[in-house]
């Protein structure tokens, strides 16, 4: 069983709510959050930004040979989603009855990512779902 680190606690906002960052100088959006803007460098003015969670699939693949953490979940789909606000975000894509393809519109949903054995923590995370 793993003990969660303080670093993990700090990431909860990002993992639950897609909180990234935005540079108020040039308007660039980032996820995961960045401390320094890629364009503005030392001039950057970074702030937290919660993205609305809507986007479209840019790329995806089906995982059939998963790491141990997800051994009971396979096959499952992971992909890259371009959020409406711009950032490209990696994540699991849930298979509902709607087909998944490049360009498929998705929304963010709240799911369990993994469960640490019988006695450890339950890790919650955003996932994407076709709409």
């Amino acid at each position: 069983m793993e003990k969660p680190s303080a670093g993990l606690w700090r990431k909860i906002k990002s993992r639950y709510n897609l909180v990234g960052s935005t540079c108020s100088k040039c308007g660039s959006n980032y996820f995961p959050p960045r401390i320094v803007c890629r364009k503005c460098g030392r001039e950057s003015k970074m702030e937290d930004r919660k993205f609305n969670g809507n986007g479209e699939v840019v790329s995806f693949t089906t995982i059939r040979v998963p790491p141990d953490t997800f051994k009971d979940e396979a096959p499952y789909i992971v992909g890259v989603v371009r959020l409406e606000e711009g950032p490209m975000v990696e994540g699991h894509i849930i298979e509902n009855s709607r087909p998944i393809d490049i360009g498929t519109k998705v929304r963010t949903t709240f799911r369990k990512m993994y469960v640490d054995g019988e006695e450890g923590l339950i890790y919650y995370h955003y996932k994407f779902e076709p709409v």
Partner: protein
Amino acid sequence: MAGIVGYGVHVPFYRIKVEDIAKVWGEDAEAIKTGLNIHEKSVPGRDEDAATIAVEAARRAVHHAGIKSSEVGAVYVGSESHPYAVKPTATVVIESIDASDHVMAADLEFACKAGTAGVQMVMGLVDSGMIKYGMSIGSDTSQGRPGDALEYTASAGGAAFIIGREKKEVIANILKTVSYTSDTPDFWRREGAMFPTHSGRFTGEPGYFKHITAATKLMFETTGFGPADFTYAVFHQPNGKFPVVVAKQLGFSDKQIKPGLLTPIIGNTYSGASMIGLAATLDIARPGDRILLTSFGSGAGSDSFVMEVTDNIEAKRKRAVKVSDIIGSNKVYIDYATYLKDKDFIKGR
């Protein structure tokens, strides 16, 4: 006066049909479908639990209410399937809706009525002026022992209601709430036990029917209202049959309970059941409509509410994700073997 300012629902998209369960146990599917008035039930995904369902419902409720989540002063989550024995589901909800750190929060348990008990609690906090808005959620991923009659109905889903008292925000005033509670051993689950135990097929009379009837009749006495004074009524629905029978006994018509009767197509969502029924009823209600809700939780107790829909309901409707859209589209049917795997019921794995 406290009232509903917003609501949200979530029901997982997986379904299993009565036929698929009955086939495995050699039972007569048609007899079960007729006897329990149930056709299929929702099943949570492997990555869903009472917390994820509560979060989805809570986010929709905040959106529907059109309020700042930082103004929610209390969050209570009622469930009999909280993911942790110690670590409140409510903490996951407040973080995921971005509520303020200065929020009152706790988990509640009262079988299938913990969510409506939470509504009563936040009504008190709102009416006393201690908080501006309070949220109560009923959410469950209930378990039925394989082969038990409960397996046909025990499903997953949840609903969140935000209570406030600003006149221009309230979509339904809650005119009155009363309860009826007794120590009745009709259904229970001990700490650490995977499945609940029930007293058998005769639990309906001393449990469900006695408590729903007593609470509803008390409501009639205290308000002077009778069945004819309501446009709609919603009762707890452990199967599709009990609510139809109790409604008739109390003098309500099938038409009054129809919009809120969802167990036949999604199963019994436990803490979510009567609250999802209320949400579906509010989805179609018009200003001036009067609604009766009586929940039931084994153990046992019933909470009864009388609500009156206001003019604000129409303006907020465009922000509501309708229950019919949530449960009607996007379904994925699974077979019994997948159901066992997804519920982690397979031994030796």
